[in-house]
C-alpha cells in the first residue's frame, strides 16, 4: 500500500476507535477540536522543519506529491506531504482517546487538570475572573 492509502485507512480506523470501539467520542467534543487546532499548528511548524530540511524524505511514488519538498502545492503543506496531516491526526486522536479511556477506567482520573495559576487567570486566558471559582464543568463541554 502507498502512504496515501495507509493514511486514509489510518484515519478511518482512528475515527472508528474513538466513536465506537473505545466510545470516548472525543471527535464530538469542543475540547478536542480546540486542542487539535493548537496541535496541528505546531505540527505544521515542526514537521515543516523535519521535511523542509530533508531530515525525513519521502518517496514520490508513495505520496500524492513528488520527491522534493515544496512549501505549498504539489501535495505538500509547509513542505510536508498532506498524508502527514492524516498520520498526525491518527496519532493524536488515538493518543487522546486512550488517555480518556484509561481515565474513565479509573487509572489516575485524579488529580484532574486546572485551574490555571492565578497569574494566568483573568489575563491571557480570560476564561475565569482572577478571584472566581474554577470554571464550571458541566453543560458547556459538548460541541453544538
Amino acid at each position, binding site marked *: 500500500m502507498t502512504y496515501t492509502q495507509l493514511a486514509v485507512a489510518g484515519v478511518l480506523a482512528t475515527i472508528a476507535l474513538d466513536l465506537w470501539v473505545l466510545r470516548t467520542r*472525543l471527535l464530538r467534543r469542543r475540547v*478536542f477540536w480546540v486542542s487539535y487546532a493548537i496541535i496541528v499548528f505546531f505540527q505544521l511548524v515542526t514537521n515543516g522543519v523535519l521535511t523542509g530540511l530533508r531530515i*525525513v524524505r519521502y518517496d514520490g511514488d508513495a505520496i500524492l506529491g513528488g520527491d522534493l519538498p515544496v512549501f505549498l502545492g504539489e501535495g505538500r503543506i509547509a513542505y510536508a506531504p498532506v498524508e502527514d496531516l492524516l498520520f498526525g491526526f491518527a*496519532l493524536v486522536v488515538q493518543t487522546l482517546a486512550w488517555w480518556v479511556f484509561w481515565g*474513565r477506567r479509573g487509572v489516575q482520573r485524579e488529580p484532574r487538570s486546572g485551574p490555571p495559576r492565578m497569574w494566568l487567570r483573568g489575563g491571557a486566558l480570560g476564561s475565569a475572573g482572577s478571584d472566581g471559582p474554577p470554571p464550571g*464543568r458541566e453543560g458547556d463541554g*459538548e460541541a453544538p
Partner: protein
Amino acid sequence: MSHLAYVGVLAFCLAGTAWLEVALRTRVYRRWRRLLATIACVLPVFVIWDLYAIAQGHWTFDPERTTGILFPGNLPLDEVLFFLVIPIASVLTLEAVRSAKGWSVGDDPSEPEDAP
C-alpha cells in the same frame, strides 16, 4: 551536532509543552501511570506502521541528521522518541485546554458513556 537535528525538534516539542504542567496545572506528568498506559496502547501501532513504511521505502531518514542509532528494521531511535514525545505533548495540550476552559473530556464517571 547535526546528528541531533531530529531529536532537537523533539526537544523543542517537550520544552514547548512542559511549562503547561506548571502554569495550567495539567497534571499529566504527575499522572505518569495513565500516560504510560496511553503510550503503551499507541506506540506499538505506529512503530509497526513506521517499520512497514521504512521497509516499503515510503520514507527515509538523513543519516547525518539523525542519531544513527537504529533498532531492528532500520527504525531510528529518533522515530521511537517521536512516538513518545508527540503523545505527551498532545495530552498536555488537551489537559491545558481543559484547565483553561473547564470543558469536559469525557473521563468523568458521572457522565454517561452515551452522552451526545
